[in-house]
């Protein structure tokens, strides 16, 4: 277990734990809310925000966060105006923010290492400050979900009745989606845009059909998430593979195997 003695591996493990908690909770929420495409969509928006930051020469984490939240917040109004089911306008918007990102980046010349780590991630080169921010966010997210657990459950179960009984569904869902936006940006920063939406959806999707107890579902999903990350880390270390892709492929294999169990 020499692998554990490296500081960067320890950081990666800690990051893996935090990411597992964040992405499992949000993934389960999105799946039961029928919003699983949101995570892929939001990660596209992150890309648009990155490009804006590059072009303006300011902090790209900040611009991707602002751009992502902007899109999340205006989406309900666009959905209402369009009178379509919400996945359609969201799909349109997110592909266009991807296009916008690519367009803006074509104007940018020079150094883009940050960009590549944002896209494909490198869980093995995590900075302390990112880790601390993610840790703080994990605490906030956990407190939020614990405090609002039954309200959120009620909203998912029967939105109309929840609203009739005084739950402000618009605000509550807005809060959860805002947290989702921040989560996707943070996770993308740590492990890359592509891995972020995969980790949010795949482990949750693997277990949702089988576990008939919410608390167990949350715990098991976190565990599965972490297992995918750790085994991905180990395999990529020993076989010299790209870590992010290895993790996604493992998660996908587990999902496929679960279908035939």
């Amino acid at each position, binding site marked *: 277990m020499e692998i554990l003695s490296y500081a960067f591996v320890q950081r990666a493990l800690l990051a893996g734990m935090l990411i597992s908690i964040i992405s499992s909770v949000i993934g389960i929420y999105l799946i*039961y*809310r*029928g919003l699983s495409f949101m995570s892929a969509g939001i990660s596209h928006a992150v890309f648009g925000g990155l490009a804006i930051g590059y072009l303006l020469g300011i902090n790209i984490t900040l611009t991707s966060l602002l751009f992502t939240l902007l899109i999340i917040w205006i989406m309900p109004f666009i959905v209402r105006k369009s009178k379509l089911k919400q996945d359609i306008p969201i799909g349109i918007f997110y592909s266009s923010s991807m296009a916008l990102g690519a367009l803006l980046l074509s104007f940018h010349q020079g150094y883009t290492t940050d960009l590549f780590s944002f896209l494909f991630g490198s869980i093995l080169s995590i900075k302390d400050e990112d880790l601390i921010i993610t840790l703080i966010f994990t605490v906030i997210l956990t407190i939020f979900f614990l405090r*609002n657990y*039954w*309200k959120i*459950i*009620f909203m*998912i*179960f*029967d*939105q*109309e*009745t929840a*609203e*009739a*009984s*005084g739950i402000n569904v618009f605000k509550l869902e807005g809060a959860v989606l805002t947290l989702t936006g921040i989560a996707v940006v943070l996770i993308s920063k740590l492990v890359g845009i592509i891995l972020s939406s995969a980790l949010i959806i795949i482990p949750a999707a693997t277990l*949702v059909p089988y*576990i*008939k*107890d*919410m608390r167990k*579902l949350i715990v098991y999903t976190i565990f599965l998430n972490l297992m995918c990350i750790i085994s991905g880390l180990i395999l990529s270390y020993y076989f010299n593979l790209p870590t992010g892709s290895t993790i996604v492929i493992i998660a996908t294999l587990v999902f496929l195997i679960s279908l035939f169990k």
Partner: protein
Amino acid sequence: MNRIVEINNLYYSYNNDFVLENINLEILEGEFWGIIGPNGAGKSTLLKIIVGILKPQKGSIKVFNKEIKYLKDEKKLIGYVPQKPNIEKYLPLKVTEIVALGRRIVNDWKKLSSHDREIIQKLMEELEIEDLANKIYGELSGGQQQKVLIARALAQQPKLLILDEPTIGVDMKTQSKFYSLLRKLKKARISIILVSHDIGIISKEVDKLACLNSKLYLHGCPKDIKIHTALKEVYGEDFLLLTHEEEE
């Protein structure tokens, strides 16, 4: 007596045409109202306005003597069973947990007390769903699901109970238990609004009857109003052919 619901000159439209026009209605504490009318008459729409899910374009509506948009904690006192709830069936939520949601609302989402558990237990026994306690909602039959939703609304111990065709798919035995439960609630001075197509039951159970078809055609005590004339007006001339005439 306390006014629980007060509707004045209310209009509602989804797109352009008004589906509710010039509705005026006053519901007092402890009154049991039945609302009848043909499909598309606007019954469910009216209930959704009363619970605050839809906002009327014109007119005013007060619940518990407050404009509906200013209701806050009072909303916990409204129990609602929608006609076609859009439920996430596969949420792994046990029947007891669903019924308990009703208690959690009133308790400001604090932990359940033993008093809460008693209320839940008793309701589940009364509606004969105690054997289903540990089942998931999606694994229940249609009628069983409906009973769970009714139990959840009753668990709030509401002051105003709004029921949109609650006994659809519920067997006769449970229906009669349900109506005797409603009679008990009425004695406890709870106001009830019940939409149903079962005119026989409605005219037997309720204190006040409203016949709705976009407009409110007639309302009053079922004994006092000429129910057949009203129904004919709302449902059209063919109506008499469809009723059991000896029932009157």
